[in-house]
């Protein structure tokens, strides 16, 4: 049986959509991101409101990809990357940040994040980054 992953469903193929966990303390950002990911054909399996919640949800749902905001209460996105990488060294975490925050992104990449996307979100950019990350598997 052919298996087609990602956004493009093809006739006669079983579609295995990538499962995504969104970690962001902003409900508005989560909504924007979820809408764009869903429209691009990805399945948002869970949402988390801070780093602690994100680590817990990661353990529960084992997503293919995590989108991780950086500035969050309780446990920020950079420390949450470290926690998740400890749980699963193969985790694919994409950082989400306001534009102009280079040093935070670099630190997150050092801790194991694989890529980053910047706010404000653009659907095409998000889809491209996720596709690239999945292809690097």
């Amino acid at each position, binding site marked *: 049986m052919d298996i087609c992953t990602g956004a493009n469903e093809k006739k006669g193929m079983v579609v295995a959509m990538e499962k995504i966990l969104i970690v962001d303390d*902003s*409900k*508005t*950002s989560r*909504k924007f991101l979820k809408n764009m990911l869903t429209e691009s054909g990805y399945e948002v399996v869970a949402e988390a409101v801070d780093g602690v919640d994100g680590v817990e949800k990661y353990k529960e749902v084992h997503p293919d990809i995590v989108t991780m905001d950086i*500035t969050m*209460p309780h446990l920020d996105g950079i420390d949450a990357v470290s926690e998740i990488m400890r749980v699963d060294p193969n985790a694919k975490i994409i950082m989400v*940040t*306001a*534009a*102009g*925050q*280079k*040093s*935070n992104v670099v630190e997150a990449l050092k801790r194991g994040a694989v890529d980053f996307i*910047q*706010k*404000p979100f653009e659907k095409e950019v998000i889809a491209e980054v996720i596709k690239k990350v999945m292809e690097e598997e």
Partner: protein
Amino acid sequence: MKDMLFSKYIAKNYMGNSLSDRELRVLKQGNIDELVATFVKMKNERYVQQLQCVLKNLRRYMGDCIVLNKISVSEDYKGDFLGCQVMDGDMDVFFAIEGDQQALLDIASGYAQEEFDTFNEDAYDSVCEMINCINGAFAVQLSNDDVEVALHPPVFYGDIQMNSDKGFYLVNMEVHGKPFNIVMAIDESVDIVGNASA
């Protein structure tokens, strides 16, 4: 003029003055960068750059419903609700949006692309996210000039009073006819007293 963003401001501040050919051309073209650079006088070029960034992003997120009224420098101000964010590093930047519930509900609804009818945490969140994105865009511009700043989380206050020894810019605007203020300060401290909500 292409839209209403600058029309009131020009009418108030340039009424009776004859406009040069260049000024008329800038008005007709409606380029926000050019409009600010041509018609707004500020303390220094950084403020001009910040205002250009703010107005372009407000236009991007809110569409044609925003209007610039008046720009002034103030040392104190009392207001209703205020969402603000600080950036620090090579430069200290304070940016805020202040207004009453109705104006901020319109801003929150416009940015989130959903109608908020009560001023709740979701509405605060929407205003704060828009502030975060506007400041992010300004941080990129600063970074292009080798000025690095870090964004702190946005904070929301109710029933606020602001004070600053050297003063802050108060940019009075309208959204769907409802007044609100943009507050900007660069390398000048702004003290806020109010009820922190987020």
